[in-house]
């Protein structure tokens, strides 16, 4: 399969990349790891006339921290997330999620920023970012702005990113020491999108849950923050009735479509199972 023709650009700075986007208007796409865009181009579902490759822009890479915040460059690959000692110690749900994305070859190329900015409801990282209440930093011709992950997703392939803007980094509020986490994903096979998946981050103190965030992948047009479900855990000791109630509330907001992964009822059922399993594992890991 051969994509439609395009002109290839490989800027060395973010400023140059933004300039290219402004110059070429609607007929331009940026490419990060390329493992969503290039298959779309081969199918000619995407036909950009200009392709701006971000691979040489070093300021978009890297994993670091500031007081109270983890900062990850948008071009950081899933492979780099998996290998990061800092993230393993401070925010291990990113490693757990990365390991469930696609396959090894794709994870060497696939970037966190691409996974987040693409707006595909099947991508796994958006729900994790929603659970962690991450802030996306974007830059465009008129400067820089911050968009909370919880306000970013508008619909299928539709996000708050404006034309000409590039997602540059993620700012993760440092999760509490001893927090529990889990990303549970049911998929039919390696490389598939989730039938349903759930991200859970919670904190326990003296046997009681003091905070919880639950988010769902691929059961709606956007990732879903299951706020009402999270509230079913807070103040409880996360016992069976609380878990059952949280799973039930999460299922109430799930609105998947029927596809090869199953009919609607099945996918809602799986969403409940994933939430339940993720809560149980997050609780086990909390200290």
């Amino acid at each position: 399969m051969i994509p439609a023709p395009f002109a290839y650009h490989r800027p060395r700075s973010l400023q140059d990349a933004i300039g290219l986007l402004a110059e070429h208007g609607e007929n331009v796409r940026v490419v990060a790891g390329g493992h969503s865009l290039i298959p779309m181009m081969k199918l000619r579902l995407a036909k950009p006339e200009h392709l701006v490759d971000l691979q040489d822009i070093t300021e978009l890479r890297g994993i670091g921290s500031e007081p109270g915040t983890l900062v990850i460059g948008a071009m950081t690959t899933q492979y780099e997330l998996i290998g990061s000692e800092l993230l393993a110690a401070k925010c291990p749900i990113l490693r757990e999620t990365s390991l469930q994305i696609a396959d090894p070859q794709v994870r060497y190329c696939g970037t966190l920023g691409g996974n987040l900015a693409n707006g595909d409801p099947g991508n796994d990282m958006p729900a994790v970012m929603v659970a962690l209440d991450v802030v996306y930093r974007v830059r465009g011709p008129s400067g820089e702005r911050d968009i909370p992950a919880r306000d970013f997703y508008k619909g299928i392939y539709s996000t708050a990113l404006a034309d000409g803007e590039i997602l540059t980094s993620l700012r993760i509020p440092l999760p509490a020491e001893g927090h529990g986490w889990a990303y549970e994903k049911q998929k039919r096979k390696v490389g598939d999108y989730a039938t349903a998946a759930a991200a859970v981050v919670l904190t326990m103190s003296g046997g009681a849950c003091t905070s919880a965030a639950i988010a769902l992948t691929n059961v709606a047009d956007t990732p879903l923050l299951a706020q009402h479900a999270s509230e079913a855990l807070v103040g409880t000791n996360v016992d069976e009735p609380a878990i059952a109630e949280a799973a039930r509330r999460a299922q109430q907001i799930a609105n998947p479509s029927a596809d090869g992964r199953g009919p609607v009822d099945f996918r809602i059922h799986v969403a409940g199972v994933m939430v339940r399993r993720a809560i149980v594992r997050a609780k086990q890991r909390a200290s």
Partner: protein
Amino acid sequence: MAKMQITLKVNNREVEALAEPRMLLIHLLREELGLTGPHIGCDTSHCGACTVDMNGKSIKSCTVFAAQTNGAEIITVEGLAGPDGSLHVLQEMFREHHGLQCGYCTPGMITRAYRLLQENPNPSETEIRFGISGNLCRCTGYQNIVKAIRAAADTMNGAREAAE
């Protein structure tokens, strides 16, 4: 679109090529450079038959544009054997343990296993299966592929210890 001049290193040899921006790496390798080891299987980045090593990473060459590899170092299955044609340990072990039937997935499988063993010289069976989960084989049921990779690891580790 005008063709672009690209320079890369393939199997330790400097290569210059002219490529349309939309040319995929797999087509550069197979059609321009005559390296037909990497295969086109699914052409949708699932099957891994087109796997090559780029800058120390296993990648699917059907999902990278040749233009993106300007300045890169590529290893294909043709680059694993010695200059005298002697087989790489992985190739020997795939033969020894019958790690292939039709052979279509084999170049991608071996190239992926090469990188896996560079990163993890002593993988468990589970780690091998996870490590090759981006490569599909429709003949073998994977049993003998896993055995071959494990045997290659043992042989390479034995050689390393003997050298120390």
